[in-house]
């Protein structure tokens, strides 16, 4: 059983993310390069790893891929998709899509985004269910550097992801215009829903320096 995780609160997750970045930097690597092997090779339309990442004590699954024509996403190299289990993870759960993380050509996270249900399939969970499942997954300790980076990104942006999912649901309801949501979920004209840009340096700074200054101020 995993011990209490330092990765769940955004500030602790930010510290963990910085630590993982420093370790990857020393290895001249980044999250995507960690996946692709040496020499790094990637093919459009393939998932990396082929058997998916299973982490957070298997409460989380993810993979990375790049879209091929006619579905390339402008301005990105590829993206991670994250999934959370519906039900007991040990009893063949269904996997619900949480969000995707867009990566640029230099391996830097640039945006969170959500997609319509037909894009990923699986059950469609609302914001509260996904946030609760994510919170549970974030209590687990990472086993690899890549897992640390992924868990830290999810933990650091957990509040933002909750807002993103709320926006996703609002976007979908707005798009429905009275249609049953089940039909809207399968509407091929609706692909990407809510998005949120990532400003990693600023976000890390806000989380990592603010607590320090507050602490210093209290000690004065």
């Amino acid at each position, binding site marked *: 059983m995993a011990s209490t995780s330092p990765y769940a609160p955004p500030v602790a997750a930010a510290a963990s993310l910085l630590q993982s*970045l420093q370790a990857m930097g020393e290895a001249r690597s980044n999250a995507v390069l960690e996946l692709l092997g040496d020499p790094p090779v990637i093919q459009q339309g393939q998932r990396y790893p082929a058997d998916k990442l299973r982490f957070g004590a298997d409460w989380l699954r993810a993979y990375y891929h790049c879209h091929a024509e006619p579905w390339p996403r402008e301005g990105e190299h590829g993206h991670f998709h994250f999934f959370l289990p519906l039900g007991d993870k040990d009893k063949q759960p269904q996997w*619900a899509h949480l969000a995707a993380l867009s990566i640029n*050509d230099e391996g830097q996270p640039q945006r969170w985004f959500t997609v319509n249900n037909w*894009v990923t399939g699986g059950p469609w969970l609302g914001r509260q269910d996904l946030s609760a499942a994510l919170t549970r997954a974030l209590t687990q300790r990472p086993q690899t550097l890549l897992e640390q980076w992924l868990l830290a990104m999810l933990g650091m942006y957990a509040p933002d992801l909750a807002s993103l999912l709320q926006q996703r649901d609002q976007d979908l309801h707005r798009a429905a215009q009275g249609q049953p*949501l089940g039909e809207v*979920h*399968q509407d091929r004209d609706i692909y990407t829903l809510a998005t949120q840009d990532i400003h990693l340096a600023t976000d890390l700074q806000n989380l990592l320096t603010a607590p320090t200054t507050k602490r210093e101020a209290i000690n004065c």
Partner: protein
Amino acid sequence: MSEHRLKRQQSKLIMGSAIGLATILVAIDHTRHSLPTPEPAAISDSTGEEEMPCGLDSESPCGMDAETPCGLDAPCSMDSESPCGMGEDETPCGLD
């Protein structure tokens, strides 16, 4: 608050922020590495406008065609723990 204490606090605030930002920027910069250009997808038998990337369907499990181009599981995926069908009507926990 005395002027001395205020200056000391401001000094700590500035120092803390400067160190933090420099450390962060260096750490991020050291992970900036060009990713390999994606190679074209393997040619699959299925063609046409319905094609989507990262296919997961039974006709081309790793090909270009799929009903759910970014799904986690697929009928012919390598995941034996993929009980959830990807059928279009399945939204067991949907909002409707």
